[in-house]
């Protein structure tokens, strides 16, 4: 079966600044892929390109076999923005039911999505009165409610308590086991170990694209944090060599 996401030399500029410098990678179906990198490295921009809301300067993004942003992908892809994008003046249940209805799902699906993110008890509360963590879970429920084939989640676990975080990750793996593909961004390295595949991005360039075990093996250390550090150093060293070989560095 074809891959869920295929990026070929993806280049994105925001204003005059180049944010993604020709990213190429492939994410197979039915996995939880982690998009890791520091704040400002281009994670959100890459996710926006996958969802098809980002203007792209070069390269291609293919999602579920179609160009990213195609009309028929809108019912097959779920997107959680980094800032919770739900209506503060509606209850959790009303938000979930609205987004469920947009995807042609019923009230039962909406109520299940709310329960799945642990907000069953707060379903009747206005989103504006929720804590930050609850609000982002309400937003997550709205991304899951359409039962998409690809779910793109921008930092879904920020501000969640550890027990809930573990529950959310096991939910992600249940979905992947059922054939759904998840692209999950995080800047917390301990979440990297929970992913089936890792994409490490730094300053708009892909530094690693492999399983956690392979990343550890390549770096020769057991700790992922340390492994990433080594990969970054190795990458910078080779970039410096390349720049030196090319004569003038720009």
């Amino acid at each position, binding site marked *: 079966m074809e891959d869920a996401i295929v990026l070929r030399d993806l280049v994105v500029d925001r204003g005059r600044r180049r944010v993604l410098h020709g990213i190429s990678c492939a994410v197979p179906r039915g996995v939880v892929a982690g998009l890791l990198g520091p704040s400002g490295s281009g994670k959100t921009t890459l996710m926006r390109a996958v969802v098809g809301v980002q203007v792209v300067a070069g390269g291609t993004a293919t999602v579920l076999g179609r160009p990213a942003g195609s009309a028929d992908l809108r019912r097959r892809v779920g997107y959680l923005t980094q800032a919770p994008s739900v209506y503060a003046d509606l209850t959790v249940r009303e938000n979930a039911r*609205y987004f469920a209805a947009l995807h042609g799902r019923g009230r039962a699906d909406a109520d299940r999505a709310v329960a799945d993110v642990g907000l069953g008890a707060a379903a009747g509360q206005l989103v504006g009165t929720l804590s930050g963590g609850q609000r982002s879970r309400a937003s997550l429920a709205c991304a899951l409610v359409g039962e998409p084939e690809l779910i793109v989640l921008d930092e879904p676990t920020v501000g969640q308590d550890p027990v809930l975080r573990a529950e959310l990750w096991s939910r992600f793996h249940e979905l992947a086991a059922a054939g759904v593909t998840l692209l999950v961004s995080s800047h917390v390295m301990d979440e990297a170990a929970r992913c089936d595949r890792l994409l490490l991005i730094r300053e708009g360039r892909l530094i690693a694209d492999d399983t956690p075990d392979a990343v550890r093996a390549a770096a020769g250390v057991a700790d992922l944090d340390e492994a990433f550090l080594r990969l970054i150093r190795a990458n910078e060293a080779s970039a410096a060599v390349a720049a030196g070989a090319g004569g003038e560095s720009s």
Partner: protein
Amino acid sequence: MNPRILAVTTGRILRQLRHDRRTVALLLVVPALLLTLVYYMYADQPAPPGGAPSTFDRIALVMLGFFPFIVMFLVTSIAMLRERTTGTLERLLTTPLAKADLLFGYGIAFGLAGAAQAAVAAAVAYWLFDLETAGGSGLVIMIAALNAVLAVALGLFCSAFARTEFQAVQFMPVVVAPQLLLCGLFVPRDEMAGWLQAISDVLPLSYAVEALQEVGAHAEPTGTMWRDVAVVAGAAVLALVLAAATLRRRSG
């Protein structure tokens, strides 16, 4: 456009409004209070000669069209700006929702709210203050509701040019005030300087006011009234098309 998605979107917008009880109360009560003010302002003025409508009748009739226009423009501008700044718009555009579903959803939801506002204000004007119009009150409310839809369409379009609530509110004097000044309430349109008349001719509210005045003066709907109604409806559709052009699924 998809009727089911349009219906749930309209319902969602009305539900948001319903949760904001204070706004609903202000929406319905304030026009009645302002009409009261106008009634007592002119209570002791002598009646105009020759059976012309009293000053209160003349002003109140036009005010019934003003309220939904002003209020729905503001409400829509802010609501749409919120959709843009909180990211819900970007999210909506990644779902099967069509742009027209969202725009018409706002038009229907706030058009209904404007009609409710006009109905309450008209009830107060007719029953409490004995407003007299030759034509029926139903036509007055219909024209007021159409004004609300026009204001929603203009608000949806203008919100694209505001980044903050402060900026959005500033579009009120820019878009609404000239239409109020030149619509023919303060100075009859045919007594204005030629260039002012020319501006007035291209402002949709002028036609809404003329339509209301036609209802005030004639027992049966006139051809002029229907033409004016068509012009206002056309302006609303044009503003909606322009608003649709400001909604981009992809941004930089």
